[in-house]
């Protein structure tokens, strides 16, 4: 490997996979861990039929293309964020190279960043060729190739404009602590937030729509819905990291713990509004009002718990996601026996106790 590329690989690709480990873990569980059997189909057959659908139906392939484009855009945003950091100022030395010598290593970096999508694209291509769908396969190849080149081009542009300002600038007309946290989501994490909402709302709506008075199932929609809520842990962790880095002064501010808890409760209430709306739309035909209320209260309690436990001690990203897996496991006991009302009470109680006990005692070490 040439040195300019090796350096970029270590500075961009490694941090990217380290930072997004949780998202890949979530997607892996989503695709290979959760569904088990769907309508009697084995795991492999399930994915095979997904790919078949992609190559046969034009609308479906457009949705997949949009998702891949979104992923490439997220990669671009990540690189832009890295280039803005003070410790990345050295990267300006690449601007001394000729344009083509700058572009080549960035193209390789783009391939690495897009690797998960490219691998999936290859699976699609193999199945598509086997099925004899040449035109969709050519489309997939062209689209992925274009995304890789565009991503490399974007990195090249950002490299040449290291100190340029972001074109997107959103101002909210008020300044309070919850508003600052929400702005962080709006400015830096909105794509993640949107993805999480699409999944959670899509899952609950897609499955609960099959419910009728005669055939009413609560567990299956809740399981998927809850998994989507649990994935909000990625957002929660990001917000807490942001707080500890940029808003540490606020711990010394004259605010009681009750006020602080109320501020976080407001933030998460706003962030969970789409789920609330989805539940309201499903009730009462596909989801009874009481069940909808329990769904939402469990979701709210879970998000507050995921936030509050971060004050008990500092968790590395890996430790935090293991903790989420543990919470998910404990939730099974409630789903299987104790019921959603008990789960809701337990989650809200855990959130309040963890926050009150941990807030002033928290310190970040390392």
């Amino acid at each position, binding site marked *: 490997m040439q040195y300019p590329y090796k350096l970029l690989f270590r500075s961009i690709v490694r941090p990217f996979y380290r930072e997004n480990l949780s998202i890949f873990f979530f997607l892996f569980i989503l695709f290979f861990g959760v569904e088990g059997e769907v309508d009697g189909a084995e795991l492999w057959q399930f994915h095979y039929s997904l790919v078949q659908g992609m190559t046969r139906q034009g609308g479906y392939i457009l949705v997949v293309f949009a998702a891949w484009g979104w992923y490439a855009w997220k990669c671009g945003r990540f690189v832009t964020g890295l280039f*803005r950091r003070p410790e990345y100022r050295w990267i300006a030395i690449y601007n001394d190279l000729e344009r083509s010598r700058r572009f080549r290593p960035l193209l390789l970096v783009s391939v690495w960043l897009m690797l998960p999508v490219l691998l999936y694209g290859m699976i699609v291509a193999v199945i598509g060729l086997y099925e004899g769908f040449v035109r969709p396969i050519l489309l997939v190849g062209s689209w992925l190739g274009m995304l890789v080149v565009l991503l490399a081009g974007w990195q090249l542009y950002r490299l040449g404009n290291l100190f340029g300002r972001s074109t997107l600038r959103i101002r909210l007309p008020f300044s309070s602590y919850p508003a*600052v946290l929400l702005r962080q989501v709006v*400015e830096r994490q909105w794509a993640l937030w949107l993805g999480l909402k699409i999944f959670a709302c899509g899952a609950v709506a897609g499955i609960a729509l099959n419910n009728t008075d005669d055939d009413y199932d609560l567990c299956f929609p809740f399981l998927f819905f809850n998994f989507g809520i649990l994935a909000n842990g990625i957002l929660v962790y990001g917000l807490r990291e942001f707080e500890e880095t940029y808003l540490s002064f606020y711990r010394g501010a004259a605010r*009681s713990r009750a006020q602080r808890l109320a501020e976080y409760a407001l933030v998460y209430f706003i962030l969970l509004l789409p789920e609330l709306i989805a539940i309201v739309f499903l009730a009462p035909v596909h989801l009874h009002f009481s069940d909808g209320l329990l769904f939402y209260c469990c979701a709210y309690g879970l998000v507050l718990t995921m936030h509050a436990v971060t004050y008990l001690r500092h968790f590395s990203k890996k430790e935090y996601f293991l903790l989420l897996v543990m919470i998910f496991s404990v939730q099974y006991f409630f789903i299987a026996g104790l019921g959603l009302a008990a789960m809701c009470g337990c989650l809200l109680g855990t959130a309040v106790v963890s926050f009150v006990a941990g807030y002033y005692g928290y310190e970040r070490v390392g």
Partner: protein
Amino acid sequence: MLQLDHVKKSFSGRIVLEIPSFQFHSGIYWLKGPNGSGKTTLLRMVAGLLPFEGNIIFNDVSLQRQPLAYRRMVSWAEAEPLYPLFLTGNELVALYRSIRKTDPRDVDYLTGVLGIDNYIDSPVGTWSAGMTKKVSLLLAFIGSPSLVLLDEPLITLDENALSVVSELIARRCREMQTLFMLSSHQEADMSLLPTGEEILVQDQTLSHAVSI
């Protein structure tokens, strides 16, 4: 008066500070000590940002038992402050003013003397280290707190700002009996505030040094 009572702080089992008893009366105190001696840790503890064993009491209000009342009297500025890059100076000021009641004229005065008024409406991400430092000092002065903790308050400031900040500290101390705890490595910093008392942070505890 600020009273430290059996204060102990450890990181990963290693004791950084162990102060049986120490008192700071109103005035200016310079914390001195080598790197890693615990100056910033002490300031962060007094600011209520770090947990510790023992008790810290300011004007008969305990940080441990009355955390809210204590925090109302204290303000803090970091050595190398970091704020959300998308916020403007005005938004930061508004956030602070939502926490600590203050006269808007005081803010206008401080932004004027510190030379912040020409960039206060731009985002933090466009500021230099010195500009950010000035804003952090402005925020520490907002609301006339009785105890002001400033970690390396004079680093990265230009000469004009140095004299303005020194004058502000001296005046607050003289007119409002504010207690200032400042940390510094530079003798030159201390010469700007000759009435300050020097406190040595070494061997995990505090001791008085000769007055400067």
